[in-house]
């Protein structure tokens, strides 16, 4: 054996890692493919429901509805912006594709929340769970998506559902991480106070930790939304329809116009979803402590119904007292 061989032993022999992966995957595919086909079912149902719903509602109805929702959570300014952007989507002639992409993203985010929030809560409460998650989440976020594209196709076939699954793999980590962070950031004193007054673990979670972690959890959902949108083009490589496919086809045919139209659609969708979720996160600060049904378009309905409710007179009295006390400048401490 020459000196060069000793100094570079990896030249003559190395682990047959790629062969191992091949073998494991082949074994899983031959033995468990039916299982994975069954797993598709809930994804398929939800995706179909979203797709039928979003594509079935006439565009104008959708625009008005989304506008009202935006007005409710963030005020009329954002409502106008969001409605305007949706009109642009319609004018570009990509309404159908946008709704297909949206249903894909919604399905992925729903499953990310169902899986991610409980996992995040566990990680937030247990140091050991967090240590186990960390390398897995790092891998999910950094491994190039093309690497798992093929195995997913081998197990689930092609179509929209494997597209959703690929998206979930990529978009799941932020909601887990930010939920865990939110739970950890609940002040130690609050946890101690809850315990001191006899809270069980569940009461501690649902009455203190989750409500206080809510802004952080919503930030996680927002991140998950954005990351699923960024997966749209990659997912379209396994026959997922929508805006991503427009971009992909545009690249394939060197059709810049087609690719740009699809790209703009994705950007507009991202802006709308980001603005709405951001607004949902900060709405507490904006509106103080007014109940949601007492402001925005919902207040129109509650106000209309009010005279018929039995507690209406009491409410008016309370409102009157409130006004009076505000006029007295009650933000200061009362002298004892």
């Amino acid at each position, binding site marked *: 054996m020459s000196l060069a061989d000793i100094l570079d032993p990896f030249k003559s022999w190395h682990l047959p890692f790629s062969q191992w992966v091949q073998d494991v995957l082949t074994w899983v595919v031959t033995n468990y493919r039916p299982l994975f086909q069954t797993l598709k079912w809930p994804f398929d149902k939800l995706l179909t429901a979203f797709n039928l719903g979003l594509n079935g509602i006439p565009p104008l109805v959708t625009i008005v509805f989304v506008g009202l929702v935006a007005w409710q959570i963030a005020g009329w300014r954002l409502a106008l912006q969001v409605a305007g952007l949706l009109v642009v989507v319609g004018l570009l002639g990509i309404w159908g594709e946008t709704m297909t992409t949206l249903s894909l993203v919604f399905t992925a985010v729903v499953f990310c929340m169902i899986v991610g929030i409980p996992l995040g809560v566990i990680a937030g409460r247990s140091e050991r769970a967090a240590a186990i998650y960390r390398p897995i989440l790092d891998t999910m976020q950094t491994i190039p998506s093309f690497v798992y594209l093929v195995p997913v196709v081998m197990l689930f076939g092609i179509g929209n559902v494997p597209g959703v699954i690929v998206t979930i793999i990529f978009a799941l980590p932020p909601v887990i991480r930010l939920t865990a962070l939110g739970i950890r950031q609940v*002040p130690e*004193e*609050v946890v*101690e*106070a*809850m*315990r*001191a*007054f*006899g*809270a*069980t673990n569940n*009461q501690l979670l649902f*009455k*203190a930790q989750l*409500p*206080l972690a809510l802004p952080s959890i919503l930030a996680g959902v927002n991140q998950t939304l954005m990351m699923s949108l960024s997966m749209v083009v990659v997912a379209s490589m396994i026959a997922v329809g929508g805006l991503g496919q427009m971009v992909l086809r545009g690249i394939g045919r060197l059709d810049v116009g087609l690719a740009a139209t699809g790209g703009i659609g994705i950007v507009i969708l991202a802006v709308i979803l980001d603005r709405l979720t951001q607004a949902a996160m900060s709405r507490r600060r904006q509106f103080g*402590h007014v109940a949601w049904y007492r402001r925005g378009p919902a207040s129109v309905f509650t106000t209309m119904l009010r005279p018929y409710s039995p507690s209406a007179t009491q409410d008016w009295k309370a409102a009157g007292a409130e006004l009076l*006390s505000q006029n007295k400048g009650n*933000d*200061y*401490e*009362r002298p*004892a």
Partner: protein
Amino acid sequence: MKAHSVEFKDVWKVFGTGSKLDLASVQRNDLSKAALLEKYGCVAAVAGVSFKVEAGEIFCVMGLSGSGKSTLVRHVNRLIKPSSGQIIVGGEDINQKSENEMRELRARTMGMVFQNVALLPHRTVRDNVALSLELRKASVRQRREIAEEKLELVQLAGWGDRYPDQLSGGMKQRVGLARALAADPAILLMDEPFSALDPLIRRELQDQFKALSTKLGKTTLFITHDLDEAVRLGHHIGVMKDGKMLQIGSADEILGSPNDPYVEKFVQGSSRLKLLKAETVMLPLEEFRTVGQGQPLADAPRLRLDTPIEELLGLSNRHGNTPMVVVDDGGADVGVITASSILRGVHERL
């Protein structure tokens, strides 16, 4: 609820044990804090503390930060478990309780107030006050009624619909107190409740708390780093340093005869004159008669035994330094205060 007594029997709490620590040998050898840290890499936050809080009294634990006083108070509701020793609450050993029994005990018999209040920011003041009731699943109506009642008790009636961030620091701490009182607990645990407040508000809350606790008669373990606060509120005071209880006694005993150099140093800054009251400076009635000044006492102002020195000085001035009569709880004349008796009392304490 009937007041309970709280007793600590040789309680130790050692943090950061690498399991190999031989607690018995530490206790035997009475290692210092530094030696313990060097030899075993752990900290004895509470080191062999024994004392008893009688039912209905306020016991102040006084010590600087790091003395183990906050750790000590958390042993009562077992937020922290002792390394060794017993904590007897109302005749029962807390360590023998199951987790469920303990939760029940915390919700029903112990109220705790924290230095940083720790209210739930997403709930109204009313819901915060009713927390312990909610945790043990009381009806909404009962929660509401009791919350209003307790808010009135701490002079915050009508603030139930507000949120914690709409309240000032002093008001938040009063909400914290109302929350602790909501379950009508036998025991109040106060962990430096007024330390984070500015001096004027602190003084005001101390007075309110004193009046309230006289009325309610709850056994109170009050943690503070402020000697004046301990003297003002506590029936008994325990001074802690490095996890050890150096001296236990009434305010008079602590200030008058400190039995430890540390306590002495601590007490130096605080004037013992503050402890003077009518009872300690008066001349007994017979003595005043034998001195024979022969002044008529029938029209002289009447004072109670515990009238503090500041008030005595003011009154004496206002009445042209004429004698004032001290009456006992039954209303009978027991002594006389003159300008010279006040001066003599002050002189004795200097």
